[in-house]
Structures are given as structure tokens and as C-alpha cells.
């Protein structure tokens, strides 16, 4: 699919918490095909600190309304500006970018593990898998009750297990501590979250010989393969996270 630069309209901006929001955008040209795991590069106008675009995962897609949703966590100036966007504003996107999560094999039992903003791509992936007739299971890690978001949306797609660091919701601890991992045998785990979480999940999968794919959030300048800044060290050498990724099978990573 051809990549493009396009101004999309903000049709809604749902503030979930003080630092999370879901931005709903409409493409007037008609959305291109978007795969789960792909991302967009947004241009944040109006701030000298946001010279480069910001990569954001495809969170949800509604082709019937040409609607693309992004889940944003406020971290710095760029995401702060995105959080403040209003209905009617414009957002310039460079998209679609990156590869996608690979399809599971027939009959595989799959687990989607997410933490923090890492849950962003998992909603669209979950929908995609459900459409394929699978019943994805979600394991979501949050810091505490106040940061638990979007569980209803995930619930509508499959079972949802939760951990919080303080035990205020679900099981206490990190995702890799959750009891579901010892109760159900998964053939394939998709994971997106903080580096430490992805490493822990990758380690767990390696031990159990589970197929594991992670979505990396490396620093990017361009997002479409021309700057070579976003590399991941793989068994095939340094590959670009923005074109060969962001999704990698952990067996290919030098982790």
C-alpha cells in the first residue's frame, strides 16, 4: 500500500484519564488499508520542541466511517498537544507505516499482553483476530486502579486478565506473575508495553517455546525507512523498526 501524507479531521477526543485520551480522526480521502501493528507519524504543530513527527499506533479503525482512533498517553510536549486537540482541529498524518502482527495459525490459542500505552495496538489486533474467528485472551498490566482504562472495549473481544502493581485491580504484580499464564497454554503471545515488560514476556516465551511477537517503540526520526535511526539489533543485523518492524518475533531479536 502506498504511504501518504494527509490532513485528517479530529472528530472526537475522549479524555479517559488525566493523561490518556482516544483521538478519533476522519480521513476525507478514505482510509487506506490498515493492519494491526501498523502505526502513523503525526505532525504536532505549534511547538518548537516537536520538530520531528511522533509515532503512534493504530488503535482502532472503522472503515465504514473512515475513522481512525489513536490512544495517546501524555509524556512530553508532543503528546500534551495531542491531548489538547479539539473536535474540528486538523492533524497531519504520514501513514500507514510499519509491518504488522503475523496471523496466528489455525486453532492456535493466542494471548495479547499489554502494559501502559502498549495496549494501544492490541484493541485493533484483538478485533482483527476475533474477525478471523479466534477468541483472543488479553492480559493487561497497569500501575494502579487510576490507570486502568479501556477494559470494557477489550472485554467485548475476549477474556481480560489484569494485573496492577499495587493489587488495586486484578492480580498484584507484573503481567508475567499472573496466574493465567500457568492455567492456560498459549501457542502465541503478542506483546506491547514497556521494554522491561516485553523482555520479561519474551523470556517467559523462550522458556516455554511459545511464539512471541513484540512491538518496539524505538526512537524514530522519519518512520519510513530513510534515516536509519530506529534500528533494532536482530539476528539479521540492524533492522529498521519503522519498516522491518515495529513488530518483531522475539527469536529474531538479540535479546
Amino acid at each position, binding site marked *: 500500500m*502506498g*504511504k*501518504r*501524507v494527509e490532513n485528517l479531521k479530529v472528530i472526537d477526543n475522549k479524555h479517559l484519564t488525566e493523561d490518556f485520551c482516544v483521538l478519533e480522526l476522519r480521513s476525507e480521502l478514505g482510509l487506506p488499508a490498515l493492519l494491526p501493528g501498523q502505526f502513523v507519524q503525526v*505532525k504536532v504543530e505549534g511547538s*518548537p*520542541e*516537536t*520538530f*520531528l*513527527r511522533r509515532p503512534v499506533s493504530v488503535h482502532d479503525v472503522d472503515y465504514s466511517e473512515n475513522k481512525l482512533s489513536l490512544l495517546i498517553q501524555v509524556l512530553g510536549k508532543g503528546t500534551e498537544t495531542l491531548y489538547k486537540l479539539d473536535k474540528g482541529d486538523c492533524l497531519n498524518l*504520514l501513514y500507514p507505516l510499519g509491518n504488522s502482527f503475523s496471523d496466528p495459525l489455525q486453532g492456535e490459542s493466542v494471548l495479547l499482553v499489554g502494559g501502559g500505552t502498549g495496549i494501544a495496538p492490541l484493541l485493533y489486533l484483538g478485533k482483527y483476530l476475533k474477525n478471523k474467528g479466534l477468541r483472543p485472551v488479553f492480559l493487561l498490566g497497569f500501575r494502579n486502579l487510576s490507570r486502568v482504562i479501556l477494559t470494557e472495549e477489550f472485554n467485548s473481544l475476549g477474556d481480560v486478565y489484569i494485573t496492577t502493581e499495587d493489587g488495586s485491580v486484578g492480580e498484584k504484580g507484573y503481567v508475567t506473575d499472573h496466574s493465567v499464564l500457568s492455567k492456560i497454554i498459549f501457542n502465541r503471545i503478542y506483546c506491547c508495553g514497556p521494554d522491561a515488560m516485553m523482555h520479561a514476556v519474551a523470556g517467559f516465551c523462550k522458556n516455554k517455546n511459545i511464539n512471541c511477537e513484540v512491538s518496539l517503540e*524505538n*526512537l*524514530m*526520526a*522519519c*518512520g*519510513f*525507512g*530513510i*534515516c*536509519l*535511526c*530506529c*534500528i*533494532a*539489533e536482530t539476528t539479521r*543485523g*540492524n533492522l529498521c523498526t519503522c519498516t522491518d518492524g515495529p513488530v518483531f518475533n522475539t527469536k529474531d531479536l538479540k535479546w
Partner: protein
Amino acid sequence: MVNLSVNIGELRFKNPVLTASGTCGYGPELEDFFDVSSLGGIVVKGTTLEPREGNQYPRMAETPSGMLNAVGLQNKGIEYFEKHIYPVIAKYNTHVIINVNGNTIDDYVALSERINKLDKIPAIELNISCPNVKRGGMIFGTNPDSARDVIRAVRAVYKKKLIIKLSPNVTNIVDFARIAEEEGADSVSLVNTLLGMAVDINRMKPSLSTVTGGLSGPAIKPVALRMVWQVSRAVKIPVIGMGGIMTASDAIEFFLAGATAVQIGTATFINPMAPVRILEGIEKYLADKHFSDISEIIGFLNRN
């Protein structure tokens, strides 16, 4: 109609907008966005004899109106280029220029000789200014004697157009431009990135794996422009200007200061269509001001 074509020696460029090395891949990466053949030329990725893995991650840091990179010449080497890239880009209807890199003079010479045989490559850009490699690169570009040696050696073997890419990290860039001219180079291109640094105060570590890296983008435009002005007044060979060009207006500043052509770098990361937009804007400016030829504004500042 406005004439936009410019020359480096007898090599004619249909227009003066080129993409800068390391910021446009090999060309095909931009095909989704515009027809690469509409540009005056493309300067492909820094190339070496052997494949290189480049530096470790992180290689990038954003800075005010700019960015630092520490890519370190990651590329698959000339053999891969010849086999897999050359056949594709040889079809472009524009000049493809290879950015040539090495650790030693022998490396530069061997690579240049090899590229001399590639029919569809009319010129090389000798990169003696890469700040992101331990050996070679900027070491040649910041020492006049080494610069002369490597240029002379390459000139002896490379028969087509030889462009020398100069480093801005020097006391007097004019010295290096003069050396290039004296040694028979056909053009100089400037500037490469300024050596810079950023620190992550939360992690209390340098932002880049290599500590220092190359600064590019609008932040460096005033320095780049000053150097283009200085050099174009001092040498007779054409000067290719670059450094922070984001808009047609930026490019025009370079022409007025003496650049015969410009290269677009970091701008392409933010807007892949930047090179064509800039080209369109230059044409409009000339038409609005009733100029019929780009040559009328090249070096305009130096005429009075």
C-alpha cells in the same frame, strides 16, 4: 517559463534541488510520495566498500529546531549496491550521485574506481565530513593535509564529476574548499552536520550511544548559509548548499548567498514531499520576481 537548470562543469541538472545523502535512502523509499525523477538529482546513502552495521541504538535525539544523529554509515556495501540497488535506480531520469566513504585513502580510492565503472552514475560526493565514525570521515575533512591527500588520490582515479562534501566543524572552511578546487574537484557541497550532543537528564546519560552526533535541521541553517557565502566568494567551482533547508524561502537564501544547487536533508523526514514542494516554491519566487533564469539569483548578494 523559468529556466531552472544548472551545471556542474558540463554536467547539466534539470533543476537545482537534490536530496541529501543519508536522508533519502536510495530513492525508491520516496516513490510513494512523488516521482523522484522530477528532482535535479539524488545523492544516495553514504556507501562504503564493505557492509557496515553502523552505531548502536540510540542513534537519534531531537533538539530545538533540529536533530542529532549517530547512524554511522550503516549500509550494505558497494557489492550489494551494484547487484540490488543500481539496477533499480539506473532507470531514474535524474542524476544519481553516490556518497563515498572510507576509513583510509585506499578505501576511498578503491570505492571511487569501482563506481567509475557504473555508467549511470555521473558523479560522486566524497564524504570527508562524517562526524559519526571513529576512523576516516571527519578526520579527513578537518585536517587540510589529509583532505588534500584523499582528494588528490581519488581525483587520479575517478573520471567523472567529483564533489567534495565539506565539514562545518572547522575554523576556516574556505581553506578546505580551496584545496578541493586546487586538486581538481568539480564542486564542493556543504555543510555536513555540526558535531553536537544532548543529555538525558532523567537517566543522567548522553542521549546518543556515541555521546556526540551530527546536528542537522533549521538550527544549523545560519551557520550553513554563512559558510556557503564564504566559500562561494572564494572559489570558482560551483557550490552545493545545504543545512536546515525546510522551505523554498530557505533554499532561496542559499542561492542568493552563492549556491548553484541545494540539497534537502532532514526536511524530508518530516515531510517526504519537501523536495518537490521546495522546487515548486523556487519556481514561483522566480516568476513572482520576474526572473527568467535561476542563474540570475545565484550569488546575487555578491554582485554589488
